[in-house]
Each structure stands twice: as C-alpha cells, then as structure tokens.
C-alpha cells in the first residue's frame, strides 16, 4: 500500500481531474468536469443525498395529500364502529376493523417507505466517510456503491408497492411480489455492509488507508453544519425528554380512558357522545403524532447536517453559495419541526409553513447535489494515483 499524500481541499479549482486525461485537449476543462468518473465515495455521497432528498420530497407529498385524509378516514371508521356497537351488530364491527387495518397499512407502508429511503441515504453518507478504511480494490468498492444505491432505491419502492401489488401473481401464501422486492433489496444492503465489514477487517490487519481521508478543512459552512447539527440533535433530545416526562404517560392513560368512554357511550346508544369521543381520540392521536414527529425530524435533520459537514469538500460551489445552502438547510431544519409542533395551535397554517420548511431542506440538499455534480474530482484523482501506485 502506498503512503497517502495529504489532500489539499480545492473545491473552487477548475483544474481537470486526472481521470479526464483520455479526452482530447480541445474538450477543455469543462468537458473534463462533465466526464469525470465517479469514485465509490462520490457515488455514496451523491446517491446518499439524492436518496435523502427523494425521501423528504415523498414525505412532504405524503403529509399534504395522504396523512390528514387518512387520519380523517380512521375517525370515520371509528364512528362507524360506535354505530355498529350501538346497533349490537358484531359483523359490522369486524368489518369496520378490517377497514381500519387497511387504512393503517396504507399509512404504515408510506411512512416506512419515507423513513427507509432517508435512512438508506444516511447509511450511504456514513459509508462515504469510512471508504478510506475499507481495504478493497477501487473497482470492488465502486461496484458495492452501485449495489448499495440500487438497494437503497428498491427497498422503499418495494415497501411502497406492497399495498398496491398485494398477493397478485405471488406463489407465496402471505408474501406478495412487492414484499419480495423489498426483502431482496434489504438483503442486498446487508450483503454490501457485510463486504464493507470484511474490507474494514482487512484494513485493521494492514493499518493502511486505501484512499485519502476527507480533508479537514475548517470552513464556515462546515463549522455551521457541525455546530448547528449538534444543537438540533440536542434540541430534539431535550424536547423528547420533556415530552416523555410531561405528557407521555398521561397520553397513554387518556387513550384507554377515551376508548372506554367511546364504548360506553355507544353501548348506551348515546351516538353524539360517542362521536365526540372519536373527536377526542383524534385530538389525542394528533398531539402524540406532532410531538413524536417534531422530536424525530429535528434529530434526523441534525444528524443530516453533521453528515453533510463531512462532504463539503466535494461541493464544488463558490463559498457564498455553499453558505446559502447551509443557511437554507439549517433554517428549514428548525422551521419544519417547530411548526409541526404548532399545528395543534395554528392548524393548517402551521402545517403549510412546516411543509415550506421541508422544501427549504430539499432545496438546500439539491443545491449541494448540484455542487457535487460539478465537482472536478481532485480527491478522486488522488485515489487513482493511490490505485496506480498499488499496481
């Protein structure tokens, strides 16, 4: 293994990467920028940010077009259940609960698709960080990166399709083709992680870096993302602790109390009271949902900001534009969870502002993605040098 030279961060340089040497000089630096081959690390970074962006966009669309409508239909089904109880119609109660199960599956698969796409993106960014410590060949690492990104795309797509594909054409009794796709994609991700672990074990034996570490530049965007990310995680944790200490037990107790009152009112034939209790249950579910969503989103955005701080050397943009995307991302990361929390007091207005916060994060991520696409590949060229030295 060669000694890895210290990298000079040069995200503003227009010097073509070494891998562009196959092009005629007439193509010039701009062609080199366009045709620079991606290393495994850049594939993970690009793919990771793209997955997170797509997951956030899907979450925004889900929040606007599905989430509230789904909650309203759950309420309608519970009202129907109370009517069935009042009428003493056991078959109708069972039918209502079958419908409720479908609604919960609809919501659950969409939430899972959103979460899994974003988590695969986080994992991709983490893998980008550890690439210097994976002692495998450049080609193997790149193939693994392609497989990982493919798995990260197919897993949430499979989960999303479960509800729509069902058991159509499936040879299995309880597992549909969409589940098979999702499980296969999950297995692919596990396989890639196992091979990465093997590469890491090889590194531990040799203690030789396989490529340069990311430059330790001390820029404002990087510091802001690191500090801002840590503060966001801290705020999320403080909020979670406050919610758990103040409301969690009370909310859990209230759920069974309200359900009991609903059943009692329905049994007594008091349909107005039963309907009111369904409303109370919806309000309680809303209060829990916004608190948990705010808690998890602010922590996820904090972690995202910290991960993005590492990849700033790959963002090929002028410093002022890097700062703008960082500010937009951090601003959106605060606005979304804060206004999700305020939904209980301000209603749809707060929901709309929260969606704008989510869009700010998405735009910030797309801005960074553009910067990564424009990156000339100075760090990749160093990796090539290292690989050639090995040969």
């Amino acid at each position: 293994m060669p000694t890895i030279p210290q990298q000079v961060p040069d995200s503003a340089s227009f010097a073509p990467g070494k891998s562009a040497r196959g092009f005629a000089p007439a193509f010039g630096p701009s062609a080199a920028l366009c045709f620079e081959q991606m290393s495994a690390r850049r594939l993970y970074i690009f793919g990771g940010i793209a997955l997170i962006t797509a997951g956030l966009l899907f979450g925004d669309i889900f929040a606007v077009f599905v989430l509230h409508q789904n909650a309203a239909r759950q309420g309608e089904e519970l009202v129907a259940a109370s009517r069935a109880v009042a009428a003493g119609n056991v078959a109708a109660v069972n039918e209502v609960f079958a419908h409720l199960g479908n609604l919960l599956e609809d919501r659950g698969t969409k939430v899972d698709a959103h979460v899994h796409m974003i988590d695969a993106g986080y994992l991709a960014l983490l893998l980008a960080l550890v690439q210097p410590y994976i002692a495998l060949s450049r080609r193997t690492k790149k193939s693994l990166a392609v497989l990982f990104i493919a798995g990260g795309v197919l897993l949430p797509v499979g989960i999303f399709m479960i509800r729509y594909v069902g058991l159509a054409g499936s040879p299995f009794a309880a597992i549909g083709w969409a589940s098979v796709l999702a499980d296969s994609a999950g297995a692919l991700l596990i396989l890639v992680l196992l091979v990465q672990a093997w590469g890491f074990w090889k590194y531990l034996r040799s203690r030789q870096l396989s490529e340069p570490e990311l430059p330790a530049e001390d820029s404002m965007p990087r510091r802001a993302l690191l500090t801002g990310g840590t503060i966001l995680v801290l705020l999320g944790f403080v909020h979670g602790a406050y919610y758990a200490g103040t409301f969690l037990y009370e909310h859990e107790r209230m759920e069974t109390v309200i359900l009991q009152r609903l059943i009692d009112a329905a049994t007594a034939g008091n349909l107005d009271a039963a309907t009111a209790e369904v409303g109370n249950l919806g309000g309680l579910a809303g209060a829990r949902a916004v608190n948990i969503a705010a808690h998890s989103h602010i922590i996820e955005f904090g972690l995202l900001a910290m991960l993005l701080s590492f990849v700033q050397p790959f963002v090929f943009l002028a410093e002022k534009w890097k700062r703008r995307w960082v500010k937009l991302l951090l601003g959106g990361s605060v606005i979304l969870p804060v206004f999700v929390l305020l939904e209980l007091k301000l209603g749809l207005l707060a929901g709309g502002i929260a969606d704008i916060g989510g869009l700010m994060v998405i735009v910030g991520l797309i801005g960074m993605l553009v910067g990564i696409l424009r990156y000339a590949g100075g760090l990749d060229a160093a990796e090539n040098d290292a690989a050639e030295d090995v040969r």
Partner: protein
Amino acid sequence: MTGSRKLLIFGGMALAAFGMLYGLQYALFAEHQTLDHMGGSLAQSFTAAASRNLAQSHAALEQYGKTKYDYVRQVDAHSHWIGLAMLMIVLGVIFERVNFREGIRQLVAFSLLAGSALFPLAVILQTYHHGAMVLKALAVVGSALVIAALAATAWGFARPRTTA
C-alpha cells in the same frame, strides 16, 4: 486515534450491534404476536360491547392498553439504541474538533456512551415493572447524561480552535 474517539466509535458500533440484535430477536419472536394481540384486543373490546358483554369489553380494552404500553417501549428502546449509536459513530469521526483537552473529551464521550446505553435500558425494563419510579428515574438520569454530553459537544464545536 484518541481515547475519546475510540470510546465513541467502538462503543457506538457495539451499541448499534446490540440494538440491532435486540430488534431482530424482538421482530422474530415477539413483534407480530404483540401486534396481533394489540389489534385483536381492541377489536374484541368493541365486538364484546356490541354483544353487550361489558365486562369482557373492559378486560379486552385494559389488555390493549397494557400491550400497547409494552410495544411502544420495546420499539422506542430499540430505535433509540441504534439512533444514539449512529450519532456516537458520527461524532467519533470528528471528535477532535470538539475544542477541549482530551481529558474532558473522554468524560463527554463516556457520558454519551453511558447515557445512550442506560436510557433505553431503563425504558425496556419498564415493560417488566409498569410505572416503577426507580426505572423512570434511571431513564431520566440516562437522558440527562446524553443531553449534558451533547451540550458540551455543541459548545466544543462552536469554540475557536485552540487545542488539537
């Protein structure tokens, strides 16, 4: 690699592996049964009420409440172990940027590791002893350790660089 970074990276990896294994065994041996039991209890409380069997309805609803109490804590503890472990690994990569001397960094890293292990453990143990004050207090201590460590880390990141 400094001691604080080793503590965070290897502690985080161990915690993540433990959290994943715990989640796997729960998913394989308990989760589906628990979900079936939870949904079944709620449905049964309504069908029993429709049959005017209020005692059975109340019992089923009580069972639903208990099952959900356990399920929420099992899932939360599992996801918090893994989430906090991931945070520790990420912090471990850049912990030299926390601008304190190594002794303080090790204290912060240890607080984060101890809190990250203790807080979800106390939450899980609550499923065996519903509402036990000692376990609630342990969860508070664990989360306080994490909060204090994160606050110190954020402060260390924001400070101008004066130490290695």
